[in-house]
């Protein structure tokens, strides 16, 4: 909200400077977002007198003026305004001044061969209004040479943010009241009104919707002239960013901005029959002041007459009965609308107006009569006319509310000792009534006050938050205890492990284009936003792969040959009961070149599925998962290459990770060239470490004797998984075989059709004594027999 210093000091007697006022506003909770000093904008613009005016020798529409600025020789100025003439006074921008409307810096120039030393300005050029037909004409008594800013009474403008709990400060008077309470001056008494009501109100007013419109007061004024509003009012409105329209409209806007009190003025000639606050009928329509037609429903309160709706109550007026320059008789409306209902209506219709903002937060329910008197007074002063008696329908909710307050709470909650007398003074300055027993009655306009804590806030903010001293939180004795949960500790460990493995951590959006999310949903229902910011951010990710894949694509488009990314974040699935089921996940994505072409290695090497397996196993090992017990199984998902992907499972059901090369269809869908390898590790599927969470490691017991290696080469069926053969070999003699490792896989010459050759190095560990030849032979036989059960035959 914007207001000028001049406006504020109309209500507040103060000697304080702009900076002091701004600091105090911030201190009491009215945040100053900006201070604009129009005098700065108007620097270099002076009151000037046109001494002579003659036609430009070379241009029909231009005149050459001599202009006096009160000092030195008169200046020659070329001017195109038709109203420029000798003897008039206006505003001259001298060389160096910057025209506020367009930022143009004025300088000495030559216009069609005639020197020009400045510019006579229009209202629009100085951003003082819309008029641009001709230059400003100042009254004859305007002092030549004076800074125009001074002459014009340009006043600094505060732009403040009012928090939604303080609708009472959505008017300059309310801000003045807060400032006065905080010692920034004295609140001036408001003008007394003594309106002579000369006839009974000819219009019947009713409220048929006491919930939505508990109170509706009105009166008629006949014989008004709806010309321009007074200049001082226009200046204040313009300072607030409002365009002056007509006296009647300006006066209602002025009421709203001065007192936070929206009101409405109807052209009486356009009304017929009783004027009633009622619920709209479903489907009823109204053409509003913004020239849009709205379709209403029965949850919305409207003001209507026999012919239909004239006002979406508290939100926006109707076009049909709006006041016009020729309007002579008017009906004034001051009502109290239910804040919640206004909010619902405003949201449903998507209308945001100053009136809605105030009604929605709650106007002063006790200020209907006075408000109507103020409004009448302003209209009579500036538009003339005779006022009728006031008619009142319904009653506003003004019953006083009382809180039992313990002034000791200010120290206990607010952390600052404020003498009781000062607490009382502050509350009373804010119009709270403090009883002798600290029963505090608060003004009905303070909808934000609910309990004692609110009173502490009032006292502390006016007393000054800067007076609250810092007090150390009590510390637990000794060194701080660890605080991370096991999952947090795991995530931190894996994040740094992944980075240490050469991967760059990315953070990508939690939402995806629906098509991408669908591709990774595996048929599960997605979480899809109702109101996404764009179609690209619509569905919550069921996998981290698509986000990283898009990032890899962007990197590739920027020319990156190889991309190694990872992310630690959540996948969003659905719980059985409709709640959110979020799974902490680590995703690795490897795209393009693993190593670039090099002098030593030759061609660039691309990532393949085994790079994915390496990351999966290394990170799972770091996570404490029993990697040697994991089974490599299928079903990584349709997004992966069916023959180059796998899952890592602990038992047949518990999938700890999936990895592999992505399916060409997936790559096509993301418009990225392969190969791309992805790994997804399901952090919440990793079993917690077993046993006590102690620090002691098991005893170190290296074997006494050296181990023995024996090599075996088998022909096996082509589709036999190497892991199956290894498991069989390892299990052949668990007492002696400690490891078995594939060191060669071969198909082709010398290997029978439908077979492949797998060579395995078996490590045997003797216990107390070295193996004898016959023992080694017996172990070998067991290995061969176990392998045979997998369809393997020893190569001759």
């Amino acid at each position, binding site marked *: 909200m914007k207001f000028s210093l001049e406006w504020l000091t109309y209500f507040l007697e103060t000697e304080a400077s702009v900076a002091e006022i701004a600091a105090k506003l911030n201190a009491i909770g009215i*945040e100053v977002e900006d201070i604009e000093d129009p005098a700065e904008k108007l620097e270099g613009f002076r009151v000037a007198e046109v001494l002579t005016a003659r036609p430009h020798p070379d241009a029909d529409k231009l005149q050459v003026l001599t202009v006096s600025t009160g000092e030195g020789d008169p200046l020659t100025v070329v001017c195109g305004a038709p109203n420029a003439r000798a003897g008039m006074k206006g505003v001259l921008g001298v060389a160096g001044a910057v025209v506020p409307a367009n930022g143009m810096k004025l300088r000495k120039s030559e216009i069609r061969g005639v020197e020009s030393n400045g510019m006579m300005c229009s209202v629009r050029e100085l951003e003082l209004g819309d008029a641009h037909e001709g230059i400003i004409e100042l009254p004859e008594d305007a002092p030549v040479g004076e800074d125009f800013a001074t002459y014009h009474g340009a006043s600094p403008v505060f732009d403040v943010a009012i928090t939604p*709990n303080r609708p009472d400060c959505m008017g300059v008077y309310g801000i003045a009241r807060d400032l006065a309470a905080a010692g920034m001056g004295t609140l001036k008494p408001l003008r007394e009104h003594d309106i002579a009501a000369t006839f009974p109100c000819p219009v019947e007013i009713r409220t048929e919707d006491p919930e939505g419109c508990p109170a509706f007061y009105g009166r008629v004024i006949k014989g008004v002239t709806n010309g321009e509003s007074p200049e001082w009012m226009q200046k204040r409105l313009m300072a607030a960013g409002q365009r002056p329209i007509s006296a009647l409209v300006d006066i209602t806007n002025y009421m709203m901005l001065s007192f936070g009190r929206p009101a409405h003025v109807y052209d009486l000639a356009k009304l017929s029959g009783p004027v009633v606050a009622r619920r709209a009928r479903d489907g009823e329509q109204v053409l509003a002041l913004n020239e849009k037609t709205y379709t209403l429903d029965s949850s919305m309160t409207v003001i209507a007459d026999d012919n239909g709706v004239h006002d979406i109550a508290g939100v926006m007026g109707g076009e049909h009965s709006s006041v016009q320059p020729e309007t002579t008789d008017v009906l004034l409306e001051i009502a109290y609308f239910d804040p919640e209902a206004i909010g619902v209506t405003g949201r449903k219709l998507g209308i945001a107006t100053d009136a809605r903002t105030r009604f929605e937060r709650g106007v002063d329910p006790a200020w209907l009569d006075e408000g109507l008197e103020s409004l009448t007074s302003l209209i009579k002063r500036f538009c003339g006319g005779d006022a009728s008696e006031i008619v009142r329908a319904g009653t506003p909710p003004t019953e006083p509310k009382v809180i039992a307050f313990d002034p000791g709470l200010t120290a206990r909650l607010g952390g600052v000792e404020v003498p009781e007398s000062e607490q009382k003074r502050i509350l009373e300055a804010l119009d709270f009534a403090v009883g002798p027993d600290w029963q505090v009655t608060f003004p009905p306009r303070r909808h934000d006050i609910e309990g004692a*804590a*609110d009173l502490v806030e009032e006292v502390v903010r006016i007393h000054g938050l800067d007076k609250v001293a810092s007090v150390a939180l009590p510390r*637990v004795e000794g060194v701080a205890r660890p*605080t991370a949960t096991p999952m947090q500790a795991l995530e931190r460990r894996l994040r740094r492990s992944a980075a240490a493995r050469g991967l760059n951590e*990315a953070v990508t959006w939690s939402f995806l284009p629906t098509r991408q999310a669908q591709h990774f949903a595996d048929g599960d229902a997605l*979480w899809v936003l109702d109101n996404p910011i764009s179609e690209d951010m619509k569905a919550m990710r069921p996998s981290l792969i698509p986000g990283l894949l898009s990032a890899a694509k962007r990197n590739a488009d920027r020319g990156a040959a190889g991309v190694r990314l990872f992310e630690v*974040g*959540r996948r969003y699935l659905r719980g059985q009961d409709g709640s959110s089921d979020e799974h902490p996940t680590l995703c690795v994505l490897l795209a393009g070149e693993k190593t670039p072409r090099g002098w030593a290695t030759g061609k660039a090497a691309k990532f393949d599925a085994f790079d994915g397996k390496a990351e999966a196993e290394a990170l799972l090992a770091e996570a404490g998962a029993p990697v040697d017990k994991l089974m490599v199984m299928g079903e990584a998902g349709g997004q992966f290459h069916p023959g180059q992907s796998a899952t890592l499972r602990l038992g047949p059901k518990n999938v700890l990770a999936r990895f592999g090369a992505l399916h060409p269809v997936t790559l096509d869908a993301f418009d990225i060239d392969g190969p791309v390898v992805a790994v997804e590790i399901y952090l919440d599927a990793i079993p917690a470490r077993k046993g006590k969470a102690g620090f002691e490691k098991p005893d170190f017991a290296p074997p006494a004797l050296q181990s023995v290696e024996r090599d075996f080469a088998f022909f096996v069926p082509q589709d036999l998984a190497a892991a199956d053969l290894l498991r069989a070999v390892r299990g052949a003699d668990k007492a002696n075989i400690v490891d078995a490792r594939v060191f060669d896989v071969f198909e082709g010459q010398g290997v029978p059709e439908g077979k492949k050759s797998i060579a395995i190095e078996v490590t045997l560990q003797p216990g107390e004594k070295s193996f004898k030849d016959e023992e080694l032979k017996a172990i070998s036989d067991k290995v061969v027999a176990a392998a045979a059960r997998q369809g393997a035959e020893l190569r001759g």
Partner: protein
Amino acid sequence: MSEHEQMAHEASARIAGAADLNALEAMRVEYLGKQGSISGLLKTLGKMSPDERQEKAPAIQSLRQTVADALTARKDELEAAELEARLATETLDLTLPAPAAPKGSVHPVSQVMDELAEIFADLGFAVATGPEIEDDWYNFTALNMPESHPARAMHDTFYFPDTAPKGGKMLLRTHTSPVQVRTMMAEGAPLRIIAPGRVYRSDSDATHTPMFHQIEGLVIDKGIHLGHLKWTLETFLKAFFETEDIVLRLRPSYFPFTEPSVEVDVGFAIENGKRILGGSGDEPGHGWMELLGSGMVNRRVIEFAGLDPDEWQGFAFGVGVDRLAMLKYGMDDLRAFFDGDTRWLSHYGFSPFDQPTLSAGVGAKA
């Protein structure tokens, strides 16, 4: 010079001049082989009388020794020269690049969250989490924002069409504050937690993204007041920025879930177009920047969480993690945080070994 000495002299000279190992071997055979000349002389000793042998043997033995030594010496020389010559052919151009290992990085948001967790661990705050897809009861109602509350509209909330299990709408949490309620309900009081995580608002420009990161702080205890809040914020910010020169300005504000509510600004100066924290915002060349929102937890929130507000009170605050990262480490475009540009990640990201610790300082020096 005797005949033998003459012979030793000549042989030594020939051996020293042997061109290669083959020539040397030929000489060994010539002198010391089975049919060699010196071997022949040695054989004559057997046929001599003891006296004659006594007289002649030393000279012949000496001759044999001299020649044998000369052969060994020359052999060592020739072998050393040969090795030298072979090594000369094995020279590598060590200006060629060594195999490169990829260098990974930790995202600034993660780094800053770890830093904050470290600082707050020292102050006794545990880390709590909650779901990001919330229902409107936790996100709004329990935080004293009933359905019609104007503040709800100010949150630019993303909604789902789905109904929550216990009624109400499902939405993306607009702040980390629902974790306050969840943790109070689950753990009761007293309580000190921080809750970091992703939050969502329907807003997008250079300083706002529809997803960003917040960290929530909550203390519920007996006798906690605004002074404790002020100390906690000052203490954490000084620790985070590792400077004593942090000036805070507390402004009364409004959040439905705190009463009183306090907005916190921090003083900064503009240097080379960047905001540098420090000093009072009222000093010349300085300004104030909104940093976080906070306040004393509203009684109603404590009640909603099932605790007795006459027994327990406390404070809460919420601060943007991305923003803290930008202020500390100098990024100026929030959108880049979520792009995954590996150049940006390498530039602004952190080494995995920049693990924040209190003893080494929580921040990672540039």
